[in-house]
């Protein structure tokens, strides 16, 4: 593989990424921004993890997160149920925001990731995979499952003062999804994938094309 020239995304310094051993990463010489990494696991590991995450997410979103019991009455909620309740109780904007950060963004993220990882198994990765990877980057910031989980736990502790609260199956699936998502990111090497992506002109260049014109 030819040495690749990059400009640091955080400070714009031009530098070359050295050959990396497994499990090592390269950081910017000036601002220490992580520039590249080489994961240890097999290339198929992210795909396996993504499939597991997709299953966990479906369960987490459909089955109740927790059940509440108080003097003979009970109530339960799911993640989309929480967002829906915000909507019906008059805080529509907040309901939409919660639905986006807790349900839509993670679901879209994992669907795109599955499509991308399946496409990445080909020798020449089709151009749409590049577009997909670009959208994944934008979505990642807004997918807040781990924050939602902490929020649910705090809410649970608050309510536990007033009533008996039992975690449901959804909660365990939710916990699994939270552990799996960072595992996908650490085992997935974006740079190698980008090097195999077909360009908009249908070619896959072998060398760093620093000096090509954009028009």
């Amino acid at each position, binding site marked *: 593989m030819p040495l690749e020239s990059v400009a640091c995304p955080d400070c714009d310094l031009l530098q070359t990424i050295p050959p990396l051993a497994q499990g090592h990463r390269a950081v910017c010489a000036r601002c220490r921004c992580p520039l590249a990494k080489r994961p240890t696991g097999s290339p198929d590991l992210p795909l396996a993890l993504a499939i597991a995450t997709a299953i966990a997410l479906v369960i987490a979103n459909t089955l109740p997160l927790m059940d509440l019991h108080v003097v003979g009455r009970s109530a339960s909620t799911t993640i989309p149920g929480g967002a829906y309740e915000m909507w019906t109780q008059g*805080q529509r904007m907040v309901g939409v925001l919660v639905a986006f950060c807790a349900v839509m963004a993670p679901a879209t993220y994992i669907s795109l990731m599955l499509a991308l990882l399946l496409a990445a198994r080909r020798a020449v990765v089709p151009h749409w995979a590049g577009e997909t990877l670009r959208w994944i980057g934008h979505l990642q910031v807004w997918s807040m499952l781990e924050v939602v989980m902490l929020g649910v736990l705090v809410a649970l502790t608050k309510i536990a003062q007033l009533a008996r609260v039992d975690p449901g199956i959804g909660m365990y699936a939710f916990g699994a999804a939270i552990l799996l998502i960072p595992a996908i990111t650490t085992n997935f090497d974006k740079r190698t994938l980008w090097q195999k992506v077909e360009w908009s002109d249908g070619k896959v260049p072998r060398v760093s094309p620093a000096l090509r014109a954009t028009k």
Partner: protein
Amino acid sequence: MERRESTASVSGPACNKVKSAALTAARLRLVSCESCHLLLRAASADEPGFCLRCGEKLEVRRRGSIATSWALASAAAICYVPANLLPVLNTITPQGSDDDTIMGGVIFLYTSGSWPLALMVLVASVMIPLGKLVSIVYLLITVQSGSFKSGRERTRLYRIVVFIGRWSMLDVFVDTFTVALVQLQPLMSVTPGPGVLFFAAVVVLTMLAAEAFDPRLIWDAQTPLEDAHD
């Protein structure tokens, strides 16, 4: 311990005098795609075009970075006041109704014996949003005054602000699931208050302000975009 991190090698003359005249992409009229990090020659400084590989719009520096970031941070600062003064939750019991602000929720958690959770909510809902606002304003002021000191520390501060931003959503989710679960009319029910909307706005606006800010501006003071000699 094995060192698992290597520093990328700096090309050309920048090697020995990184501080004075580091070779940046912008100085060579190259532009790095923000999405796939491909280095391309910019068609022109104002209109660099689109990335050939991934199709992202190319920008030498994020367009209107400082103005957009200032606008979003100011809007967030304005929303921060009602977010903390207006009630986020309203508890209705047969005995009457009770309003809770964010600080009220923290005090409730503390007095009910779970001080670690109280501390967590205090940090996530009060200190992080405020710290983020102060940090963004500090970064904007130092960039605008052309400061070239402690670039590495300021870049690290920027990365922390970006990384930590999402955690302030904590209180929004706590309120959502409290409301969703405690619907036991006529015994007890909880409804969201107007403070939630302002609080969510603070979080989203500060996240967008951090995204609008371009960290490369921190370094432009020590490596001017155009070489003075050419």
